[in-house]
């Protein structure tokens, strides 16, 4: 009986029939609840948010999103550029580990948002300032995953490389340690992307920037336009989800196909 039901529902919506129904269900309940409450401040309705989107989509797409993406990528790329060399050096050279480890352990527990005042003092209300907060959020997960990736390299790969003529540190890092650590580094970047996205919104909200998706949430809150606040929340969530999926598709599924054998 249950199987027949599932089969029928499945055939209505194709491969993702049940998932689609689940989301549609949430939207319907939300709309009904909002109409019953009848209070735009407490809970704007689904249709109000859709209406907001229809009026606001050009601003989102052509003004807020580009600004936020600039903040995001300044921080993320900066994070990769700083974290990779340091994490690799720490993972490969004992001395580098001893030099950087105490510094990392001291700086890492400071929440990224605690840097906001200094970001403003150092960079002013600029894109770099918001990018810096994103950077602080992104740099440590990438660094630590690079480090652990290097550290978990089995000796057998190093030794086989050596007897094949790969004996210099530079070559061993490039041809053995780095490719081995790549899945771990990619996982670090993915975690960093999630944290960076959170830091971005907070940084823009706290006035490090005067534009961007996070800034607009705060802006519309002060205007008590809760329908637009909710709209921007949803947009932030969807873009975060899209970036995560895109990363998984582009990097983890394609570049790291060999890893299948290790995780099974």
């Amino acid at each position, binding site marked *: 009986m249950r199987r027949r039901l599932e089969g029928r529902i499945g055939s209505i919506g194709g491969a993702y029939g049940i998932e689609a129904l689940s989301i549609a269900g949430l939207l319907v309940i939300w709309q009904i609840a909002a109409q019953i409450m009848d209070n735009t401040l407490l809970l704007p309705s689904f249709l109000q948010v859709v209406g907001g989107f229809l009026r606001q989509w050009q601003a989102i797409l052509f003004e807020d999103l580009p600004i936020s993406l600039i903040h995001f990528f300044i921080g993320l790329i900066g994070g990769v550029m700083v974290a990779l060399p340091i994490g690799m050096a720490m993972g490969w050279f004992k001395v580098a580990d001893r030099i950087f480890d105490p510094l990392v352990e001291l700086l890492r527990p400071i929440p990224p948002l605690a840097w906001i005042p200094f970001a403003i003092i150092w960079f002013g209300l600029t894109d770099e300032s918001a990018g810096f907060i994103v950077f602080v959020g992104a740099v440590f997960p990438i660094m630590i995953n690079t480090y652990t990736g290097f550290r978990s390299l089995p000796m057998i790969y190093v030794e086989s490389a050596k007897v094949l003529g790969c004996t210099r540190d530079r070559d061993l890092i490039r041809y053995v340690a780095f490719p081995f650590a790549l899945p771990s580094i990619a996982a670090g970047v993915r975690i960093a992307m999630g944290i960076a996205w959170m830091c971005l919104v907070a940084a823009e909200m706290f006035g490090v920037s005067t534009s961007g998706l996070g800034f607009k949430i705060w802006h519309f809150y002060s205007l008590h336009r809760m329908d637009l606040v909710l709209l921007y929340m949803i947009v932030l969530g969807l873009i975060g989800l899209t970036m995560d999926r895109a990363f998984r598709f582009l990097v983890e599924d394609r570049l790291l196909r*060999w890893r299948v*054998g290790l995780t099974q």
Partner: protein
Amino acid sequence: MALLEIVGVSKRFIAEGKQMEALKEVSLSIDEREFVCFIGPSGCGKTTLLRIVAGLVEPSSGWVSLDGQPITGPGPERGMVFQEYSLFPWRNVLENVGFGLELKGMDRPSREALSRQYIEMVGLERFEQRFPHELSGGMKQRVAIARALVNEPRAILMDEPFGALDAQTRNTMQTELLRIWSDKRKTVLFVTHSVDEAIYLADTIIIMSARPGRIKDRIEINIPRPRVRTSPEVNGIRDRILQDLRSEMED
């Protein structure tokens, strides 16, 4: 002059605060194109000896030389096939085999062409795009052999390369290894636990004793190949080796 000279090699390890002698004054000359098998009880230092020849471990005293040149570290002129699977999991078969050539700076087309020759030699031409996790144990060791041979080493060191394989696959691999060896005429140092394997393959069998690890006996085998695993001569040599190993256990 011999290709490979092992002269008075000793190796001491410190384990749990105590010194233990893994190898004691091992001396041995190995000729060009010679197929040498090492056999002996577990822990007698066979792997350690091979690793010293490979340059992965330094002897506590003594030295090893190749063509009169003392060995100071690992190098592509001594290829090694490890007991455990050692293929790079992030490289497919073709890229694994081409690794040494890539390091020498050979361009992609030439190194792929050359790698393919060796992949064909070990009978894996249909699998060159596969990743190591998509291969069976026997296939992995074939790739490891091809990967070592493509560097044209002077000597190839094999540490129980077929130890993890079933008897059937193992026999096939032995026959193929002999075919490759008679084709390429490389010097081979081959560690095994199997007396039958040693007799089937070797020109010279080195029997080692444990604690401390040293050479106990040396047997030259002059039976022409391919050898029949159950012929009377083979049986005679097997008896002698088993006797050696048994007296070793009683000590």
